[in-house]
Each structure stands twice: as structure tokens, then as C-alpha cells.
């Protein structure tokens, strides 16, 4: 291993067992205040419903818990440590003021059923964020209720379904390009639509002729990601919209890649009828190891009657409130009103940016992706030469000749101090390396990334085994996923 990196150095980190392995009777990390009401006899109150035993729940002290989770945390890579170029995931900086304002008392402790007259603060946040997102997308109305992107997709398609039903012409299927996220077809199936695949053309865009041929009165909508998962803007977007609209279909946009567009172009202006946003991508709310997210759905006027209940409205007395009486609504998709804590963070992000900051953010995100493309072109195969927006997709074609695949390169990147890019997606690129730097990376960090990727390409030529065996510097080496799936061990059990 002659290649080294200036990005990272190995250092000691702590071993730590499972919390259950530290437990022993009599240790405690809790203390309750003395009761100011009489004690109760729970056996008498509960009878046979009383629980006698809490099994193997742990008993540990506070310092042990602090060390336990702090040690675990040091085993994670994170945006806070460095570039996290997962394509389609938009791993941007998560501003800390977002976290601070989400913890202000009335915001953190507001109960969803408290009277509207003492909920005006929360309702104002709903209203202001909604107005911002409507303006950013160029749409007419919005629901903030869906809890994540895929949940937003479901909500959007439910509205599409309700719309066609109200027109008296229920439809059967959804068109989905072969480059789409897996959530798109899974969502269509959940709302009982058949899925029909749509081929991409040689530029990686929707094949207009194929679309025109496949479009008919059975098609409820096309689900399109724009820019698509190749990071390519669908240049014929207006023709796509026209083809759909001419036959009464709707254009659904998966807004996962909205970070390429904010402040530069608005989906509502190029023919989109319904779209979701990912506040945990474009609007900087933290991914938190997999969630929470938030997936607002913005729509055109024609879909407004079908919005989930409740909807925030201004009442005659000027105060804000929830409106429940919406007979054509698709209903609720979640209890209460959505992931409110994420609304707070997203609004704080918009305020910190303003119109100029949002535009500059988008420009930097696109600039960064193009800079990486330029840096790695020639070293890695670029299957589509179409202009890049916020992410760039290479393939492992050149390295595969030495038996090294995208996942191997990704694992080796870990030794260089980076989180890998997205591997093996989109499906239309065999052996894909999908790289999205976001706006949060400096020129220096990206220079290090390009250098690392080039160094790995050299290693593939000189010493492919080093790459195939990577990572070499992590606390665990490659894990046996097949064994994990064959005989699943999904919980700890005490040794017998």
C-alpha cells in the first residue's frame, strides 16, 4: 500500500460492547421526584394486566451511557467529519441554529391538540414555510403532512388518483423511467397502480418517442425525477408535459434532486402538476442515520380539493387554524400534522439563506459536481456525456477489466477518509459511481477527493488486491452480509 492520503490519519478509538453486557442489578441512571399524591397498589388496579418482569432491560449508570453512545458515535462517518458524496441523498451541512430553534420550549413542547388560540406560533411556522415552498417550486398549494419523500410520493399519487376519479375517468397505470428511485414503483404499487417502465434515450433522458407511444388514457401520471438520477436536466420537459396533458395525464415530479434547481428554475413553470420535496435533502434537516425526514407535496390548483386533512387556513378573525371539512380530501396520511420539527429547521435554513443565498447554494452545488466531473473524466468512464447538474454518474467499466467493481472502489475510498458515493445506482448504468458533492464542500476538500479517486484508479492498475480487500483502516473489515441474511440475528440474547 504505497499510496497515502493527506486527508486522514488512523487513530485509536475505544472498544465497546453491547449495553446489555454492562448491565448489573442495582445500577441506575434515573431518579424520580417524590410522589405528591398517594401511592397506588398497581396489582389491585391492574389485576391480571399487571406486568411482573421487564426481562433483559439494562441496568446501567449515567456515565456508562454517556461513554457507551459516545464511543459508538466515534465509529460513524458523518458530514461533520468530511465530504459525504452520496448521489441523490444531498448530504449537505446541517446548520446548528436549526437544532437550537427546534428546541425552544414552546416549539419543542407544543402539544398537537392544544387549542388553536395558543398554537398561533406553530401555525405561523406552517404558513410561512408553506408560502416559501410554494414560491420556490412555483406551485399553487402544498401539504406538509407526509413524513418522508416516499410518503410524499404516496400522498401525491393518492391525489392523482382522486383527481382522475373526480373526473369520472379512473386510470390504471403510472409510467416510470428506468432511471427512477426504487421508491417510485414501490409507491405506485402501494396505491394500486400498475407500473409501466419507460426507457431512457442515449442521452440518459426520457425517450420522447417512446413516451408518446406509451401514453394513453390508461396512464394516470408519469413520475419523473428532474434532474434525473444521472444528474441530467430533462431538456424536453415541456414536450413531456404536453404529451401527458394532451391525453389527460398528470406530471409528477420526484423532487429528490431539487438542490439543483432552487432559485434557478421552478417546476411549476415547466409543467409539473404535483411534486414532493425532501426537507432532509434540499432544506438541510439532518439525516440522523436514516431519518426523520419530511416530504411536503406541492400541487397545482386542479389538485387542491384533494389535499390531505387538515389544511392550515386564515380564519375570518385573522387568526390561523386547521380546516378539517374537505369532502374531496384523500384523507389523512399520518396522525397529527407531519414532522413539525423538520418544518422549523427547514424554515430556519431558508431564513439563513434568503433569496440570494438559496440561488448561490444551487450554483455552488452544480459548480461542485461539474468540478468533480472535470477532475475525474478520463480516469473513470463517463457513460453519458450530457451536461451535469448537481451530481455526476461514472461507471466502473475501466476498473472492471481488473476485476474491481464500484463497491470495491467505494470501500477503498473509506481508507482515504471519505464516505463512498452511491454505488450501483441508477440501474441504467452498470457499475455506477453516483457522486453528489453538494454545495457544502470547499475546493480543497474536492481536490482531495479527486486526488483520492485518481490514486485508487492507479492502485487498480498496480495492485488491484489492495482495492478488493478494502477497507483496511476501519475497526471492522468487510462484513459477511450473506450470513447475516441467511440466519438473521436481529436481537441480543443472554448466553445460556
Amino acid at each position: 500500500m504505497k499510496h497515502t492520503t493527506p486527508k486522514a490519519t488512523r487513530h485509536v478509538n475505544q472498544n465497546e460492547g453491547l449495553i446489555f453486557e454492562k448491565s448489573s442489578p442495582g445500577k441506575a441512571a434515573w431518579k424520580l421526584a417524590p410522589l405528591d399524591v398517594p401511592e397506588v397498589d398497581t396489582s389491585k388496579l391492574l389485576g391480571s394486566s399487571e406486568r411482573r418482569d421487564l426481562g433483559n432491560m439494562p441496568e446501567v449508570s449515567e456515565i456508562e451511557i454517556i461513554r457507551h453512545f459516545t464511543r459508538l458515535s466515534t465509529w460513524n462517518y458523518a458530514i461533520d467529519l468530511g465530504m459525504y458524496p452520496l448521489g441523490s441523498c444531498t448530504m449537505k451541512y446541517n446548520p446548528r441554529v436549526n437544532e437550537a430553534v427546534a428546541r425552544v420550549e414552546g416549539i419543542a413542547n407544543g402539544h398537537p391538540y392544544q387549542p388553536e388560540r395558543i398554537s398561533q406560533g406553530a401555525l405561523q411556522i406552517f404558513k410561512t414555510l408553506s408560502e416559501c415552498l410554494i414560491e420556490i417550486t412555483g406551485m399553487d398549494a402544498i401539504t406538509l403532512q407526509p413524513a418522508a419523500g416516499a410518503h410524499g410520493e404516496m400522498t401525491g399519487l393518492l391525489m392523482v388518483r382522486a383527481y382522475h376519479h373526480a373526473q369520472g375517468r379512473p386510470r390504471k397505470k403510472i409510467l416510470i423511467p428506468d432511471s427512477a428511485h426504487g421508491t417510485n414503483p414501490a409507491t405506485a404499487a402501494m396505491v394500486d397502480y400498475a407500473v409501466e417502465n419507460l426507457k431512457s434515450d442515449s442521452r440518459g433522458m426520457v425517450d420522447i418517442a417512446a413516451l408518446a407511444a406509451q401514453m394513453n388514457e390508461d396512464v394516470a401520471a408519469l413520475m419523473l425525477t428532474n434532474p434525473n438520477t444521472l444528474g441530467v436536466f430533462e431538456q424536453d420537459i415541456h414536450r413531456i408535459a404536453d404529451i401527458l396533458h394532451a391525453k389527460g395525464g398528470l406530471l409528477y415530479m420526484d423532487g429528490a434532486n431539487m438542490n439543483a434547481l432552487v432559485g434557478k428554475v421552478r417546476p411549476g413553470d415547466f409543467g409539473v402538476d404535483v411534486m414532493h420535496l425532501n426537507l432532509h435533502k434540499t432544506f438541510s434537516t439532518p439525516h440522523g442515520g436514516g431519518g426523520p425526514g419530511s416530504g411536503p407535496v406541492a400541487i397545482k390548483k386542479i389538485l387542491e380539493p384533494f389535499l390531505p386533512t387538515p389544511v392550515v387556513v386564515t380564519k375570518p378573525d385573522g387568526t390561523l387554524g386547521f380546516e378539517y371539512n374537505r369532502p374531496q380530501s384523500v384523507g389523512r396520511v399520518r396522525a397529527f400534522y407531519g414532522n413539525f420539527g423538520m418544518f422549523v429547521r427547514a424554515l430556519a435554513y431558508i431564513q439563513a439563506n434568503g433569496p440570494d443565498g438559496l440561488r448561490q447554494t444551487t450554483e455552488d452545488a452544480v459548480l461542485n459536481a461539474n468540478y468533480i466531473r472535470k477532475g475525474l473524466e478520463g480516469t473513470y468512464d463517463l457513460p453519458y456525456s450530457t451536461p451535469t447538474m448537481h451530481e455526476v454518474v461514472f461507471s466502473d467499466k475501466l476498473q472492471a477489466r481488473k476485476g474491481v467493481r464500484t463497491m470495491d472502489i467505494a470501500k477503498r475510498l473509506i481508507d482515504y477518509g471519505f464516505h463512498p458515493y452511491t454505488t450501483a445506482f441508477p440501474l441504467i448504468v452498470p457499475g455506477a459511481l453516483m457522486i453528489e458533492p453538494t454545495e457544502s464542500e470547499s475546493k480543497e476538500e474536492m481536490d482531495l477527493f479527486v486526488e483520492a479517486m485518481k490514486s485508487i484508479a492507479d492502485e487498480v492498475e498496480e495492485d488491484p488486491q489492495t482495492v478488493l480487500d478494502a477497507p483496511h483502516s476501519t475497526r471492522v473489515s468487510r462484513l459477511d452480509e450473506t450470513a447475516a441474511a441467511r440466519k438473521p440475528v436481529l436481537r441480543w440474547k443472554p448466553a445460556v
Partner: protein
Amino acid sequence: MRYLPKSPADREAMLKAIGLRSVDDLFAPIPAEYRLTRDLKVPRQMAESEIVDYFRQRSRENGEGYTSFLGAGAYFHYRPVIIDSLISRGEFLTAYTPYQAEISQGTLQSIFEFQTMICELTGMEVANASMYDGSTAAAEAVMMAVRLTGRRSVVVARSLHPEYREVLATYATHQGMPLSVAGFGKDGRVNLAELENSITPETACVLIQSPNFFGTIEDVKATAEIAHRHGAMLVVSIAEAVSLGIVEPPREADVIAMEAQSFGVPLGFGGPYCGVIATREKYVRQMPGRLVGQTVDKQGKRGFVLTLATREQHIRREKATSNICTNQALVALMVNIFMTVYGKVGLRELAKQNMAKTAYAAGQFAKHGKVLFGDAPRFNEFVVETSEDPHAINSRLLGHKIVGGLPLKKFYPELGNAALWCCTELTTRISIDTAVGVVAENEGSEPSPREEAGVVEVAR
């Protein structure tokens, strides 16, 4: 813009390296007629101090400083401070889904511990981590039962959280899943005779909640016997997780759909919360959501990975068990830390305090209003029927900076002037006495000396 790490010179240099003259060239692929040539109409760029001020102001308009007796699926319990200390570590907060296991062992091990503790508490064999919330977990659990039984219809208890029922209806409509509802009896529990009559050979599952929406603990065993006798599964929703410290878990259930918000998650005006599905090992391959499994690395060292991903959308696309991708991982971590802090003994003591406060409050309210459903055990909620409209009572309570119980007329017109009250370990005797005093103002019965003391305190 303070989040962007580039100087104008950096941008120049990068454009030059790419071979472009201006940033506009980067956006050339977007047809000119659609390009936005004006500023977005969003608030101007604000300083951090202004942002903090803005949200402090909103907080003051949002019930700051009120004492609340609301529960109904969202509970105000104490959150140990170490929860926020630990989840604020950037390595947890700013990491993605742990697909790259070698640099995600922290998240993966903590999820494995979460799955273990949920199993211990629910009496189930496997648990996922996580679903969006209790309502969508319930809907997905029902869809899971539909796949497992090959049957299509569902019987739902009317004592299930009304908004959970609405969510299930939304999910079920387009799945062609007929729903029927079984009412509740005088003890507030699901009417078992009616439930049994609603079951048909097409019933995939029965869905109940325990403790139910009224805080009443259902007879899970009897419900399970009925469901199983007809070849249907039993799905039990748990909305108040703290109950698991003292209430026997629904071990007879086939699937448990849980809302874990009570375990250290802020009320946050309704979200983000933490749904969980737990079930039997034999059903795991029809379970939605992410699962972490234990395995070994090349040197035989213990490690953890995401597993059984062939159930999931990114592999199976339209044939997946669910479309769920992003979940509630960081919230699950809060829940995990909370469960670790209270543990085997603390959770029981915490649950007992909830019961003591609730028993006291119900006893006091019973002197002035009618406490319904007293014949079955309850956890930390109870229903009070008054002669006065509870909205009017609540208006007066707001004057004392108290948010009274949830008026139930909107969800259960048949219950008339009833409201759902909740007490947790944080509810003080003084606030209970004050609230009882305000309720008593327009009720007929004679307040006992103790309540008078409460009223006097208010008058001061």
C-alpha cells in the same frame, strides 16, 4: 452566505478549470424560457440572532408556560438531558442510513440494541427500526397481515385512536381492503361480541389499541382468542409506550404497531415521532422497514449490518413490502437512550408514578363529573363526562394557564360532553386540584374540603 465554503476566487478558479466563463453556462441545459430571472420571494437573508429571535417569538405564541392535561397519542414525559447531549453528536446527527457498514457501526449497533429492547418490552421476537409514527405503523402492520393471510378485510376497534383509523382508511381505500369497525362497551373496551360478529372468512386481522384511546387496557387475550379462532391475525397498537413498564404487553398479538414518542421524544406539535413494528420471527420476511442483523467481518470480529434488504424498495421496487425509505432513525436513537436510562427498574417505577397521578386525578374528578369506563383497568388517561361543555371548561382553564382534557365530541359524538384527560409523572397535584376546581365551578356536586383547598389556591 455563511454556510458556503468558497471565496469568489475559488469559484473563478473552478469555473476556469471546468472551461466555462460564467456560472450561467452551468445552467445552459435548462431551456431559457423556464429560467428564473428574478429573486425568489422568500424572507431576506437573516442573521443567526434574528432567526433565534423569530422562533422565540413563535414559541411565546405557542403555549409556552402552560400546564397540559392532553395525551391522546402524544405524551408529555420528562426527557433526560443526556438524550439531547448524545443525539447532538455530529456523528449520529449528520450520518446517512448505515449502508456502508464499516463506517456506520455506531448507528448499526445502537439500532441492534433498540431492536433488542423493543423485543424485551413488547414480548415479540423481532422489531424494526423504525416507521414514521404509530399511525402509519398500524396501517403497515395491517397490510403485512393482509400479505401473510392472503385475506383482504380488516376489523378495527372504535377505541383505536381516531386519527390512526383515518390513516388506515386512507391506506386501505386503494388497496381494496374493506374496513369494519367494532364499537366499545360500557367498560370502554372493544365489544367482543360485536367484534366477533364483524369477522368474516375474509378478515385478515383485527386491529385494537391497548391501552386504548380512552386509556383503558383491553382484554388482549380474549381478543386474540377470537381472532385466531377465525384464522385472523391480531394486530395491537400501543400509543403510550410508558405503559409497557407496568402493563403486561400484548404477547398474544401477531404484530405490534407501536408509537414510541413517550420514550424521550419531544411533543414537538405532533412530530417527528417514532413508529415501530414488532412481530414473530416467522413473519419477518413480510415486515416493512429496516432491520439490523449481527454478523462477523473477515477476521471473525462481531459487527452489524442492514439485513433482509430484499424486502425493501431499493431492491424489490414495485414488489417491496413497503415504499418506506427514510425512516425516523435519530428519533429511534432518542428512544433507545431513554430506554437505557430507565431500564429494567426505572421504567416500572416511572409507569407506577403515572398510574398514581392518574388514579388520584380520576378520584378527584369523580367527585364532580362522571368518570367513564371505570370497570376496566386504565393506565394514565381517563374520560370525564360533565354537564358543561368541556370546551367552555377549557376556556376557563386557559385563564389559569392550564390546557384541559381533549373534548371527545369531534371523534365520538355519542359521548356527549366527555373529555379525555391524561396525567404523567410530570403532572403536579396542585395542577390537578386547580383543574378539578375549575371543572367543579359549574357542576352540581359538593366539592370535598380537599378540592376547596385547590379552588382557594386558584383564587389567590
